[in-house]
Every structure is written in C-alpha cells, then in structure tokens.
C-alpha cells in the first residue's frame, strides 16, 4: 500500500446521519483534525476525542483528518475512519464498538419470515430506526444496493451496525455479495451475531455449501454457539432448475427466496404485474422449498407508492404457497404482514373444521362432517395449521376451544 490519501463515507446536502472522512498520512506534524459538522456545537469535542482514540488504536501518529459530518452516530464515525485507515495501512486489528446487550439474541429455524426489510449496507440513516417497524427480519445488504467502490467501506459500517444498532428483536440478516467477495464478507460479520445469511444469485448447491463451510470455520474460530441460518436467493433459470438441490443442500438452509428482476432479465423478458412470465419459476420454487421443508419467500414489490398493487400481489403470493416477501420500504411491512396472516373468515372456518373433527373423534366417529359436507383429513390438517399460525401471530387465543360456541 503506497497510497497516502484515503476517502470513506458520504457527504452532501442530502446526506443525513453519515460523514465523510478524508485521511492524509504525513511524515511529521502530529495529528491535525479539521472538522465541519452540523452538530459541532453539541458533539464537536466528542467527535474529535473518538477519532483521536481510533488513530491511536491503529498507531497512526502523523495525519491530517478532514471530517465533513452530517450528524453521524459514533458507530458510523468509527466505521468510516477505520475504512479510511485500512485503505492506507495493512493491519489485522479491528476497532470494535461495544456490542450492546440488547443484540444478543438468536433466531429459530421455524420463526416467521413474512416481512424482511432491506437496508442498503452503506446508508446508515436507514439503519438507525429500522428495527422499530416490527419487520420479522432486517437485511443489511452488501450486494445490489452498494456501489462497487463503496463495497469495502460498507463492511465496517454493517459490522458496527450489528454491534451498536438495536434492531428490537428483528432477525438480523445480511445479504452478502456473489462469489469470493461474498465469502470474504462473512469474515467481517459472522463474529457479530448474525442470524441469517442471504446468498444472492444462487445457482447450485455447491455455492450454499461453500458459504456454510466458511461460516463453520468462523464459528469455530470465534467459538460462536448460536446458529447462522441460510436463505439462498434464486434469480436465474439455472437456479430454478436446481431449486430442490439448493433447498436441501445444507441443514442450515431455512428458506429460499426468488428475485424476479434478475430472473426475468435472465430469461430475457420484461417483468409484468401479472407475472405470467415467472409463474412456472415461482411454482417450482414453492414446490422445491416445501419438498425440502423450508420456507418459500417471494420477490420484492418495487413500486413503494402502490399499496393496492402490493396488497393484491401479497394475496396472490400467499395463494401460491409463499410464506413471506422482501420489503424495500417500511410502509410495505404492515401490508405484507396482514396479507400473509390468516383473515378473520379463514380463522373462523378453520375453527369450525377443527371443532367438528375433534367432536367427531371424541364421539368415536370415523367420518367428520361439517353440516352436510364430509371433511377429508388434509382439510383438517390445513385448518389446524391455520389455527397454529393465528395463535402464534396473536390473532387467536390458545384457549379458543373454551369459548362459548353458540349454535
């Protein structure tokens, strides 16, 4: 490394909660900090103190540091400075902010993944409140939402966010890059309690295995006990053809998602609202996921202004067997959650079916009837699943059987 000036972060009139650090290594003269900040009157001293501590940590003694700050939180300031430092010096050291205690939670294989909010991995302003919208998961994204020249610095930002930002119980997910860069991304984040990794443009079972192997190595090295789940994202024709193999490639795979923008591009057709061009792919993905016992997850809906269109898409998606969708804006979350949750009529009908089934059994009857209609075992099983879901979502009390059932 023989660069002497490094730049990290973002500045500009529209930038919020971020900063730009320009670091120039000098041969002498000590540390000089030139700070421009909209919160200078309140945090000027604390910003300088933090930066001096970081420079000392990395043994940097002679430097001009120019900071343009637009209200960056400490975890952002330190990520930006570390990213700049690492452009100029070779070091294995990491300046890790405290892991807040609220972030030490793990996920379970069967938890709901109806709603997962995508967060661009180099935009701190979106991360800070992301956990407040009650999405089932948040996805810190290294892939499509980060410009190629910002990929390196986003690693420090996402790592620090995983340690410092309270996501209020949302499953902590990261979408890594494709290929080798994606595997290297894992080194930066797996030690910081990630619950799930999304593997983009996944086409083969081998890709999933490579990710799992790398995660296992890191888990051993850092003695990490909690599980890290995987969710491959299928975005090509080849991926669809291999969907079942991908779905059952590793024990840690808990869900499989489809990405339709890339898929339609891959097969060379425009993506339509009706989605006829991807109907087979989506069906195939649902069937493969169900066969492997994992959750099939639908693509994102990209028009954030069209809530009616989103609502219709969610219902269609649920009807095909999908169990969740990605969200690209917080406003989509409640619409998607409501869409995947069982409706009032569905719950009532399921209660009737389960009730009829249970009373027939207690009367020793082999045949279950509701009114004049015979009910098959799969119908009962589906009703039971609906009620379990409703109970877990808090839409139905677990003691519903005790409720008065007027005739």
């Amino acid at each position, binding site marked *: 490394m023989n660069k002497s000036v490094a730049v990290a972060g973002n500045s500009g009139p529209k930038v919020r*909660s971020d900063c730009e650090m320009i670091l120039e290594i000098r041969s002498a003269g000590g540390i000089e900090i030139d700070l421009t900040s*909209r*919160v200078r009157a*309140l945090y000027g001293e604390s910003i300088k103190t933090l930066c001096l501590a970081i420079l000392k940590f990395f043994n940097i003694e002679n430097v001009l540091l120019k900071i343009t700050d637009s*209200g960056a*939180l400490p975890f952002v300031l330190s990520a930006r400075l570390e990213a700049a430092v690492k452009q100029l010096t070779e070091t294995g050291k990491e300046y890790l902010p405290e892991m807040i205690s609220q972030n030490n939670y793990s996920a379970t294989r069967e938890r709901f993944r109806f709603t997962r909010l995508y967060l661009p991995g180099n935009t701190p302003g979106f991360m*800070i409140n992301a956990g*407040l919208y009650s999405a089932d998961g948040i996805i810190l994204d290294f892939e499509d939402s980060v410009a190629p020249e910002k990929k390196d610095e986003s690693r420090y930002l996402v790592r620090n966010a995983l340690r410092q930002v309270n996501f209020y119980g949302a499953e902590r997910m990261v979408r890594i890059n494709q290929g080798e860069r994606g595997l290297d991304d894992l080194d930066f984040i797996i030690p910081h309690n990630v619950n799930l990794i999304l593997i983009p443009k996944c086409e083969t079972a081998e890709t999933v295995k490579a990710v799992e192997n790398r995660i296992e190595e890191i888990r051993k090295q850092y003695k990490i006990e909690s599980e890290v789940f995987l969710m491959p994202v299928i975005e090509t024709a080849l991926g669809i053809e291999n969907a079942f193999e991908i779905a059952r490639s590793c024990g840690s795979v808990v869900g499989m998602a489809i990405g339709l923008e890339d898929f339609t591009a891959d097969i060379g057709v425009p993506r339509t609202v009706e989605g006829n061009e991807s109907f087979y792919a989506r069906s195939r993905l649902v069937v493969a996921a169900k066969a492997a016992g994992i959750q099939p997850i639908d693509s994102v809906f990209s028009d954030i202004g069209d809530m009616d269109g989103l609502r219709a898409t969610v219902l269609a998606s649920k009807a095909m067997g999908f169990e969740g969708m990605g969200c690209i804006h*917080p*406003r989509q979350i409640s619409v998607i959650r409501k869409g995947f949750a069982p409706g009032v009529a569905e719950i009532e009908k399921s209660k009737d079916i389960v009730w009829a089934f249970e009373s027939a059994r207690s009367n020793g009857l082999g045949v279950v009837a509701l009114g004049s209609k015979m009910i098959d075992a799969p119908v009962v099983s589906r009703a039971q699943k609906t009620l379990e879901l409703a109970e877990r979502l808090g839409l139905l009390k677990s003691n519903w059987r005790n409720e008065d059932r007027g005739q």
Partner: protein
Amino acid sequence: MATKTVINAAGRSVPLEINGQAVIPFKGVGKHRPEGTKFAPPVPSCSDYPEDGNKLITSLEEALKKCGLADGMTISTHHHLRDGDLVSNKIFEIASAMGIKDLVWFPSASFPCNDPLIKYLDDGTINRIEGSMNGPLGRYVSEGKMKGTAILRSHGGRVQAIQDGDVMIDIAVLAAPSSDTFGNAKGTGGSSACGVIGYAKADYLYASKVIVVTDNLVDFPCIPMEIEGIYVDYVVVVDKIGLPEKIVSGTTRITKSPDRLLIAELTASFLDRSGILKDGVTMQAGAGGTSLAIAVFVHEKLKDKGWKASFGFGGSTKYMVKMLEDGQMGYILDAQVFDLDSVRSLETNVTHVPYPVFNAYNYHSKGNLTSMMDIMILGATEVDLNFNGNVVTHSDGYLLHGIGGWQNCLHARNVILPIPLFRDRIPVIVDEVTTLCGPGELIDVIITERGIAINPLRKDLIDSVKGSGLPVKTIKELKDEAERICGKPQKPVFDDRIVAAVKWVDGTIIDVIRKLKTD
C-alpha cells in the same frame, strides 16, 4: 453592562428590566394577576373622518405619513399572508427612505420572506422585533446583532401584552385580501385570499392608528367584517399584498417519512387506548406532516366507532375539512387557514367559522377555548426530565422558531407531544431545556418512536393505559436511550448578554436567551 437578574419561579435567572421597561419575573402557572383597567387607545371622533366613508389614500407611504410615522414608534402587522407577505417589508423600506429610526416591529409572526428586514435592523430603522423569529432573523438575534432585546410572546401573550399596555401599537398596518373603502375587511376573496384574518383583531381594536392595505377593493359593505371599519383610519389599495402560492398551500400533505408515520400511529393508538378519544371529543392539531397523519388516523377511528368530534380548533387543513364534511366533526372554529380546501370550506360550510386567537388564547379573557380542548397535539425542539418544553431555540442555543400558540395550547386537558427521540444525532429529550417556554406541569405525554412517557402528575393517564401493550417508559428511560444512541451532548456556551426574552402567557418573564459565544 451588567443586568440585574433574579431567579423566577421556574428557577431561571431573568432580568427585572428589558428595553428600559420594568418586567415581572414568572410567578408560576396562573399566579399573576394584573391590576387596574385594560389599556385603551386614544379617543377618536367621527367628525374627523370623511362623511361618505371613503378613507382611500393613494399610497402606503402617504398613509404612514398621515399616521405621523416617527422615530421609536411601534408598528404591528399580522402574519396571515405567511411566506407570501409583500406588505411588512414595504413599511420599513418606506421608513428607511424617510430616515426614520428605532422602530419596533410587532408582528404576530415572521417568515423567511421577512429576512430582508435584516438590512433595516443593520441601518437602525428597526431597533428590535417583538415577535416570533425564524431562520436567519433568529440567527441574527442569537449572535447579538440586534440593537434592542427581542421579546417572544405566544399568540395569546401578544393579545395580553396589548391589553395590559405592555405594547402600545402606534400604527397597525393590516393587509386584507378584501376591503371596502370604509375599512371593513376580510380574509377571503381576491387573489390573495388567506381565509381568515383573526390575528389582526387585537391590533385594530387597540392601535392608535389603523391602516388597511388591500389588493381587492369591494363595494361597501365588505362582509363578514373580520376587521370593522369603525376602527380603521385609512385604506390603501396596492397591486398585490401577497404571493398566492406562498400564502396557503395548494394542498397540505401528511408526512411520508416512515419514522413520523410510526409516531403518528403510536399517538393515535394512545388516544384510543387511553380513552381520550371519545364521542364528542374536542381537538386541535397543527398543519405539520405528523399532526396531519394523526388527524387522519383519528378520523378513521372516529368513523369506525360511529363517533363524532364536537368541534375542532383550526389551523384548518383539508384533513379537518374532510372530517367536517364526512360528519366526524361538528364544527371548525378557525384561527388560520392552511390550504385551499379550507378556504373553500370556510366560504361554503356554515359550520366552519372564523374564531380569532383573541377569543381562544387570551389570558385576559373570561375563560378560554384551549382549556376546553381534550386533545392538543404539539411539537417541541426539546423536552427535559421535568417535562419542561422548549420551542424557540435548538440545543445548540440558536433562536430559530417562534412560540406561536404553543404556550396557550398547553392549557388543554391532554397535551401530547409526538416528537422523535433525536434528530440528526441531537437528542430531543434532555436533562434541562436550553430555553424554558412551557412548564412541565402542563405537558402530559411525550410520544416518540421508541416509547411513550407520561407525566407522573397524570396518574389517571398512566392507569388508563396499563396492560394496553403500549410501550410506556419513564422519561428518564427515554433520555438514557437517546444518549446511549447519540452520546451525551456538550452544552452550548453563552455569554452574559441577554438577546431575547420569553414571556409566559400572562406577560411575566419565564426565561431569557443569551448571546451565543461563537468562535
């Protein structure tokens, strides 16, 4: 120059004299009782006015001269033309050309369009502004550049100051979207319609001289007479009193920010679960994006339950008008109009009527509308651990906003502040407010995206939401969370010089703003 100060009932160090006038330190909420009679303007005689009722004067300059414009006078204006006002600046342009000095500008509020007045503060035409200051004007004051000391009053406090004789208006220059030659005037009609012009009421009743400036002369009688011509000296017709697109919004809009929507949703849930929202409820909500979103959620809840708000106090917006027209609100009593839908409603709905702050907010009224309100949605730049609120300065010490009706509104039954826990790293909940504008005993609920804090004085509200599942926390917990995320801010450094005083609704001094030390 050392100013003698005392500690007032709110624990703030305040002076006993400002701008050469004795002032009274804050004594506590509802404690101060002025004695004597209300101030009265000089006695006029109708013999001195034209018998045909035609008071037209060729120009504003001529009218100001006829009113005897002189050094040191107090000139008042209203702010119904908001950021489209073309009249206020004109007054001082004329005064400056005449070589007049040391005027006091007494507006009901200022806007960015008034920033050019800085040059008349610089050249000595204006000594000081007694009114709300925003943006660059506030910055100018904070940096100690204004000659006199600014006085910040609430809308109600402005009426009180006029009635107490604290402020004696020499000339009121009142822009009116419609007027007849006698000076009867209203806020509708013409190309500069602003809906109502109620802020001008105390001005025309109490000023020594009153000039109405209009760009829409109508036949006598101009009705409804929001300004009554019997109080008016001169009428001036100009090409344009305002820029229509900056007077009212074509349309006000609810916020699109997911963070603010979250706070609005939480506020609506709180109103619902606490039982504050009920059939016959009375409410006021502003025109800010979050307030509008709350109004929309409240509207939905009222509709779901088949309830109706008995009246709403405007700041009217299309969202309030929709409640009225859908049957979820009985009346709109209106102090100011924010968008075109509201102007239309005011002209067509008999249940939508002007209601000046003179009637709603004034300390010297025999009862007030605000204390009759169930739901009061307000903002703040800072709230402290004792629930004290600040609306005029930012945490960095800069004076950047006016009080508006905020202090007056604190007298409502349930004062609710939906605010973010921090803005661009700056915590909104702090140990102690930079400037005290409203005592904590009047602020009931703080609703942030990270939880709700209820004033411990409101045990009834605390009990009402027990077991509701709402994220109720102590204000200390919220403050700690903000500091955990943002870090603890350092304090701005002030020097001793007082650059502005904040008056309480009764005219006493609740706090002062000192000059910022700038490096």
